[in-house]
């Protein structure tokens, strides 16, 4: 079977078409989902791509979480469906309380676009099984509100439960607490991160590396063998 992975477009989403292409390259069928639809078209997994949904007005992700499509996604995520939030998608997942914490303005106060080194801390999630724990990868980062923050107890909990999935290496580009670039929920099916794996899937494009492809192959393997 071919896995069907939904990609949500909110007003102001930017990386939806890139994400669809990455899913196709990885070997699955990309299914466009519209923010006003409650119907998830029977997809096996969902990606919330990057962008500035609703112009980031009020707060990044704060309005999108109320979109009709999010009700269905929260319900199915709680039932175990793999969900990946990238950048603005991560912010939406936090606002929807599928993941703890929040993103603040970068400490440098500027938009930052760079090729970012990360360490994959765990392969025990739906989206990182094809990496080895401790593996270093390099994928693009581009945001202005990327400083991950949460209270100390939540951070300790994330660490002790192995839910810090990615950590910035060499340079913390935005002041994220404990160098956290991405986290998961307790079950490991919901993952959010600020950097952009969908921009690192073709050798010729972007940074010239394909370090992001394993996000998509990980989930596809899981779905196909499930």
């Amino acid at each position: 079977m071919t896995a069907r992975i939904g990609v949500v477009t909110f007003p102001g989403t930017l990386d939806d078409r890139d994400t669809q292409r990455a899913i196709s390259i990885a070997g699955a069928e990309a299914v466009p989902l519209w923010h006003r639809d409650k119907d998830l078209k029977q997809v096996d997994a969902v990606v919330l791509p990057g962008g500035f949904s609703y112009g980031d007005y009020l707060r990044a992700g704060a309005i999108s979480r109320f979109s009709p499509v999010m009700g269905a996604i929260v319900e199915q995520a709680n039932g175990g469906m793999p969900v990946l939030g990238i950048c603005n998608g991560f912010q939406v997942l936090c606002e929807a309380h599928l993941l703890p914490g929040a993103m603040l303005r970068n400490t440098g106060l500027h938009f930052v676009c760079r090729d970012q080194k990360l360490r994959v801390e765990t392969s025990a999630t739906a989206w990182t099984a094809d990496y080895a724990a401790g593996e270093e990868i390099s994928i693009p980062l581009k945001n202005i509100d990327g400083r991950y923050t949460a209270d100390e107890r939540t951070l300790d909990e994330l660490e002790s439960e192995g839910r810090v999935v990615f950590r910035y290496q060499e340079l913390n580009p935005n002041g994220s607490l404990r160098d956290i670039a991405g986290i998961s929920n307790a079950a490991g099916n919901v993952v959010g991160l600020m950097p952009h794996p969908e921009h690192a899937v073709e050798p010729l494009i972007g940074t010239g590396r394909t370090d992001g492809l394993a996000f998509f192959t990980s989930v596809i393997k899981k779905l196909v063998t499930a």
Partner: protein
Amino acid sequence: MSLDTVKHAAGTPESAQPWKELGLKEDEYARIREILGRRPTGAELAMYSVMWSEHCSYKSSKVHLKQFGEKAPQTDALLVGIGENAGVVDVGQGYAVTFKIESHNHPSYIEPYQGAATGVGGIVRDILAMGARPVAVMDPLRFGAADHPDTKRVLPGVVAGVGGYGNCLGLPNIGGEVVFDPCYQGNPLVNALCVGVMKHEDIHLAQASGTGNKVILYGARTGGDGIGGVSVLASETFDSTGPSRRPAVQVGDPFQEKLLIECTLEIFREQLVAGIQDLGGAGLSCATSELASAGSGGMRVELDTVPLRDATLSPEEILMSESQERMCAIVEPGKVDRFLEICEKWDVIATVIGEVTEGSRLEIFWHGEQIVDVPPRSVAHEGPTYHRPYARPDWQDTLQADDAGRLARPANAEELRAQVLALVGSPNQASKSWVTDQYDRFVQGNTVLAQPEDSGVVRIDADTNLGVALATDGNGRYAKLDPYTGAQLALAEAYRNVAATGAKPLAVSDCLNFGSPEDPAVMWQFAEATRGLADGCLALGTPVTGGNVSLYNQTGDQAIHPTPVVAVLGVIDDVNRRTPMAFSEQGQLILLLGDTREEFGGSAWSQVVHDHLGGLPPAVDLEREKLLAEILISGSRDGMIDAAHDLSDGGLIQAVTESCLRGGNGARLVVPDGLDAFTFLFSESAGRAIVAVPRSEELRFTDMCGARGLPVSRIGVIDGDAVEVQGEFAIPLAELGAAHEATIPGLLV
């Protein structure tokens, strides 16, 4: 104040009108009265004043711009030429590419963030209006002295505005320039380029035809921002004692523009529009008059149906408002419902404000009363034309006689080394990553090359790997020394940059930034630069497809350097064959292509080491540029070269430094016979590039150069972790990198 209707105007010929305050000259006002056979209404006066401004009418420049048409090279590639929102070029496989560069200089000085942001927004809508999906942007920027306190206000604001707007639209920013010179202190140049892609059959034009077709205004509500922006801001010299003009700068909402883009593309896909125009400078006055003027019939508009942000706006203000993120479409009655449905899907407000009529007049009504009745061509296309006097300034000879060749050169290897470090660390030659790292270059997932590469390359078809390349260049110092040659050098450099990445140059867009046209010396610079550019485009076979003129870039009697900025578009059949600039393989040979002469006039070296501007700029040989481009393209296509970098400001040592730092490898260089080390490193002779060639390809490549008559010399090898000039000096990459990287953050943070 009571409504100034057409009827009222006809009956009150003696009423005093504020034509002067609106920027019109006395003879222009008289001409409007002659066209209409009465005095204009307030609304008509508003329309004429903005449409006849320098910015919209090109009244001082158009007698010179004509040459771009008269001297246009024969080419099959041009699908739509000058005069539309942007030119369209055939790039093969059924694809058409549209691109254009524009200025937003004056607003960006007053309000850097919004000025720059709306500059990006405006050019993106121009590209969208042609029927294309915008796929990338570029921003050539020029500021005052790097260490001037006001640069710290203007530059970060402009960069944040370019990024804040472009990033939010999801358009990769793939190149541009950042240049500092005291001549831009009170007049920074913020130029913005956008490129879009469509299929041939998707080309749309700005015309209103078909009696009964509806006029739909869609996008943002109309507000009080940007009123008089074009007439007051873009067409008058700044007066330091004048009142604040902040309200004349528009305020952008990139989120609204993103919705407008996606909504418009969906409307195009369903073929719902007969004509379309974006609202930019002069707002509704421009859109309605241009659409009606280019179409076959007239147009009737009910102005009171325009959705407003501020209900107190007068009809004149609504006509002049430059509120951003608005478009105007001409739609057949049977397609209106579907059009409005798509707008609703994207939460875009859309309103039928009028229709195409049988007559030949543009008629505008306000609550049933007629306030405008004009021949649209007289507003949009038949504005005044000036033959401004121009004369070669008396100081030009003195400037050219002040030969940079007489400047003191480094006396020994130690001085030479110090000057290399000073050059690569100077604000103009230093790394601009502090700026470009604030722009998203990855979005859309098609970026093959982006800054600091010689040109930005984006893939436009993921199945066939067809791509386009774009470069923008300009050098005000060269143009000041000789505007004709300076314009050709800008063209040659952009052309060379496109070829260096392996793409074939096809077409040109230009942004001509000059001082006041009322100064004969400035007008001479403008006349010379346009003549140079038109001649150059003819020689290179690359037509000018459109662009923009920005005049009055001067404070008091101090004009900026004449600054023609030239964008060249190229096509690359297979983006896998693109040539990057990085020296990435140790052991590969470094070859210098072209002739190096003692040419230092206007050079970066003369600026950095001697703070000097004089003499003549480097000579231009456009036949040589063509040959060099052919060699670079062949070398890339046939896999002979692994890296290429154009030589321009800063000369060879600047190019070698950039290629070494980019690849993380050093280079050992040998000064070729017949040259001294100083000339070898710092000369800015045009028509040159360096390439990195695997040893196995050397013979094949040099044979090809030999057979075609392009001088080539082996100048070194990629090796070690220092840039070493044998017998002179070595600079470790770390030291070179620190000098190159630290400057801009040091000035701005």
